[in-house]
């Protein structure tokens, strides 16, 4: 039972370079890279960013099969977003097909491509950069490198571990409803009793965990030391510079090609 709750990060393939970067720097790089891409809706900037990303991730050791296994939700979401744009996007230019509210036009085709590529350009780095991130290492980075309050960071880290127990609670409770004779109908009411019971169990487990942490000196006045050092070095700097460069190059390419289209205009 417990063997199934092993973190998924363990079976992810190792990556060159990226694995040497502190998780918080990866977080920073992902934000720096994707935020500018949210400012414009054109296909040139997104395509430029995506091409550079694919080349760099390939160099880091991401194979097509890794890409498929790890990023499939993004690979599905991108065309779905594109199709909805194709049918319902702002119509302009020649119209090829229409049915009730749906119209496929030159404009909506362009928008569909732009949106599909953009979802990929934003989603892939988010997934691939965090493929290996261990929650404990991320918490170490947040507390030691970014100096977020350690009480908050470690409390959240320990609390997140309880989620696995809540899932087991929920499964046992669903089975017990059938055993108690109330599994045939009244799904809404059943859900309510389970939600209440889960809340009670969650509070109880949470306070036990808090007691266990406090008994180990958590939250005392003594300045804390860290068993694991969270460090940043030149790989962190390189990744962040790469992210900024990709963002600048892709926006510049869109401006140069005349396709830059700010979301606010």
């Amino acid at each position, binding site marked *: 039972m417990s063997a199934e709750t092993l973190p998924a990060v363990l079976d992810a393939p190792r990556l060159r370079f990226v694995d040497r970067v502190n998780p918080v720097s990866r977080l920073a790089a992902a934000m720096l890279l994707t935020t500018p891409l949210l400012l414009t809706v054109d296909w040139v900037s997104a395509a430029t960013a995506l091409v550079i990303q694919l080349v760099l991730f390939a160099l880091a050791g991401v194979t097509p099969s890794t890409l498929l296994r790890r990023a499939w939700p993004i690979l599905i979401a991108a065309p779905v977003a594109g199709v909805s744009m194709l049918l319902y996007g702002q119509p302009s230019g020649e119209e090829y097909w229409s049915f009730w509210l749906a119209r496929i036009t030159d404009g909506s085709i362009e928008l569909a491509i732009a949106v599909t590529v953009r979802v990929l350009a934003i989603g892939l780095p988010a997934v691939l950069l965090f493929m290996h991130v261990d929650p404990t290492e991320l918490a170490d980075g947040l507390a030691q490198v970014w100096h977020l309050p350690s009480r908050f960071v470690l409390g959240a880290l320990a609390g997140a*571990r309880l989620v696995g127990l809540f899932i087991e609670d929920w499964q046992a409770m669903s089975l017990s409803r059938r055993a108690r004779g109330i599994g045939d109908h009244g799904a809404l009411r059943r859900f309510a009793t389970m939600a209440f*019971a889960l809340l009670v169990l969650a509070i109880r487990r949470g306070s036990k965990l808090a007691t266990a942490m*406090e008994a180990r000196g958590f939250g005392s006045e003594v300045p804390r030391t860290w068993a694991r050092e969270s460090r940043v070095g030149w790989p962190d700097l390189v990744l962040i510079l790469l992210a900024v460069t990709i963002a600048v190059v892709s926006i510049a390419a869109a401006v140069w090609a005349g396709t830059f289209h700010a979301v606010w205009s």
Partner: protein
Amino acid sequence: MPTSSVSSPAAIEARGWGWRHASRLRPAIEHLDLRIHAGERVLLLGPSGAGKSTLLHALAGVHGGDDEGEEYGELAVDGVAPSAARGRAGLVLQDPDSQVILARVGDDVAFGCENLGVPRDEIWHRVRAALAEVGLGLPLDHPSSALSGGQKQRLALAGAIAMRPGLLLLDEPTANLDPDGVREVRDAVGRVLDRTRATLVVVEHRVDVWLDLVDRVVVLGHDGRLLADGAPREVLAEQRQVLLDAGVWVPGVPVPGSAAADAVGRASEVGAAGSADRISLEPALTTRGLAIGRRANAVVQRGLDLGIAAGASTVVTGPNGVGKSTLALTLGGLLRPLEGHVEASRVLAAGLRREPIAWRSRELLTRIGTVFQEPEHQFVASTVAGELSVGLRALRLEEPAITARVDELLQRLRLDHLARANPFTLSGGEKRRLSVAAVLATRPSVLILDEPTFGQDRLTWIELTALLRGLVDDGLALVSVTHDAAFIAELGDERIALAPSTSREFA
């Protein structure tokens, strides 16, 4: 920071000490005068509600401020308030799951040292030493979620001793463990104490586990006052009846067999009549080529051909993780067999299809009842009386019939004074009695219990086994998943021992 690997044992002194939880009217513990010398090993006994855990938590300095409760008198560890002596006491709690703090074994043990400001190199030195001492020879990056209950408790112990405490506080550390886990934890504590000479205070109902390790027994009464204090053998002999009344498992006192059945109003001769009938009945449940598992790709057992006799009690035993609970849920018509069949006898099916998994939820009620390991997982009503009537209402019985049956069960299981209480607020023993009564309400022909005696005191244990024996003698088919040797001796008419499956597949 002490650099030697041993810190000096701590002394405890309580003078007129008491504590009232903010949500309660009466103090959990009152007027306690107690002195424990450095290096003493104390077993703390008493009925549930005597404030034993309250005392341990206070000694560990985790009671928090005025918003959590009110403190009276004085309590000191080495002459200072426990909250000012963080790190002097190490605390291990009852529930293995709720005290694992971090995802990796090494990090979890290091956590306390980090909070005490121990330098990094020293931390890892202590972590390795602590893990070796409790006998957890695992890599430091081993996932803590993949440990057994006994290993988790030893991990918690390692986390405590890595802080180099002078006082070790154990709050029912083995109550939720199987016999192997109990032994592992007890032996680890013994090794730690022999090396560190730390002061020990342990709370536990199962006295025999700790008897050889302690040199003093302290008994608290219902109101938290001191009842007895002295050398283990003497206190156990002198306070025997008090302890038995408090539900403590006093070593050497046999559990009453048929005498207990008399206590709940049953004549023991009925047992003989019942067992004569048993032979003529076809099995209530039969399995053929059964494979079980929680999910299709996680088979834990396959090829099971079993028969569950009516009018007999069957116990299911085997090591942790072997699929005992999964088998119970599958027999109970709650989990779908992954291969093969579970088949009900014609009498049990009573006109329905033969596979229990195909029955509707309401149709299970009078046929197969399942009592879950955690009573809280099966509670669905806001009062005890409501909980008992859930199944009866699902059967659409008339109101007078429901009331009559609920009243009968309330009386029989001594829950009548709690009829209006919320099930979640009951004590451990009361929750267990309610969870069994709620399932018995609809008079199922087959009753399936998952670890019914886990963590129960002696009184609840005796009541429960007597009640079950009576029901079996009346023709019930009983299936119990259990590790409890005394329970097996009492109710192991038939035995199913599951062994780890060699064809075990992992997800």
